[in-house]
């Protein structure tokens, strides 16, 4: 309980909540879009083995997760260091051992975790049909449209979440996000037909 309280306090002091929300939406969307691309690509290529999609998806999830963590952590750390230095100049004291310094370090780590976990998480969710298909629950022909539907639903839900936090029309925001997913699907299907 005390640990959670500490985290809540650091989040409040470092004001990392809006930034991490932004990171979460952006990267969760990236994760869903990437898997959508892989799945549609696999369908266009006529893949019959679900492990191709699973391993490609896992590889991409790992890469997105690590790059997201490292990128966000380092960027956030540099930005926050700059801010802390400016504050130290105004205060004429060192703040690294104060709650502000600790919150600042926590915020960089938190942003990195959110940035790394969110794309990997949505990617894994969208890959679930292929895991189930590999265990014989259903065929790959069913897993492909199911995975596409899950990716599109994830995008829609992310839009709904955006609508909720901005106190605007949730369905409209959901539809906007969904539209992007549908464009990707449409482009690939057109390419498949042309091919």
């Amino acid at each position, binding site marked *: 309980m005390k640990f959670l309280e500490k985290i809540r306090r650091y989040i409040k*002091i470092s004001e990392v909540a809006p930034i991490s929300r932004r990171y979460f939406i952006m990267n969760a969307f990236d994760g869903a879009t990437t898997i959508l691309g892989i799945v549609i690509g696999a369908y266009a290529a006529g893949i019959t083995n679900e492990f191709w999609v699973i391993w490609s998806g896992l590889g991409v999830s790992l890469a997105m997760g690590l790059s997201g963590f490292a990128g966000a952590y380092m960027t956030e750390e540099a930005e926050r260091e700059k801010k802390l230095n*400016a504050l130290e100049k*105004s205060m004429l*004291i060192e703040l690294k051992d*104060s*709650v502000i310094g600790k919150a600042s370090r926590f915020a960089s780590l938190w942003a990195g975790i959110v940035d790394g976990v969110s794309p990997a998480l949505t990617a894994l969710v969208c890959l679930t049909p292929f895991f189930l298909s590999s265990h014989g629950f259903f065929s790959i022909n069913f897993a492909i449209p199911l995975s596409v539907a899950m990716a599109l639903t994830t995008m829609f839900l992310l839009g709904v979440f955006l609508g909720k936090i901005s106190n605007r029309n949730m369905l409209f925001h959901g539809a906007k996000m969904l539209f992007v997913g549908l464009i990707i699907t449409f482009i690939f299907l057109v390419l498949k037909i042309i091919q």
Partner: protein
Amino acid sequence: MIRRIVLDVLKPHNPSVVEVSEALSHLEGVEAVNVIIYEIDQQVENAKIIIAGSSIDFESIKKKLEEMGATIHSVDEVAAGERIVEEVKTPQDRSARI
């Protein structure tokens, strides 16, 4: 034992006055806290902090404030002992003569 202490403190905007006053009020020997912001800058703010209690430990107040990223500019008033002695105006005070 210190019963009342008035401090002039420089603090960043975050943690807020609410958090600072709460943190100080939880210290041992502290019974009441009053924080007044009297000047706000772009990065920092100046606060007058009045702490009252039965036995205030100045070092723990100082440590807590430092932990919150604040720094004590000056100790403006201290009342210690069995009871609080209020400030009295005397003819020597410039304000009393005016």
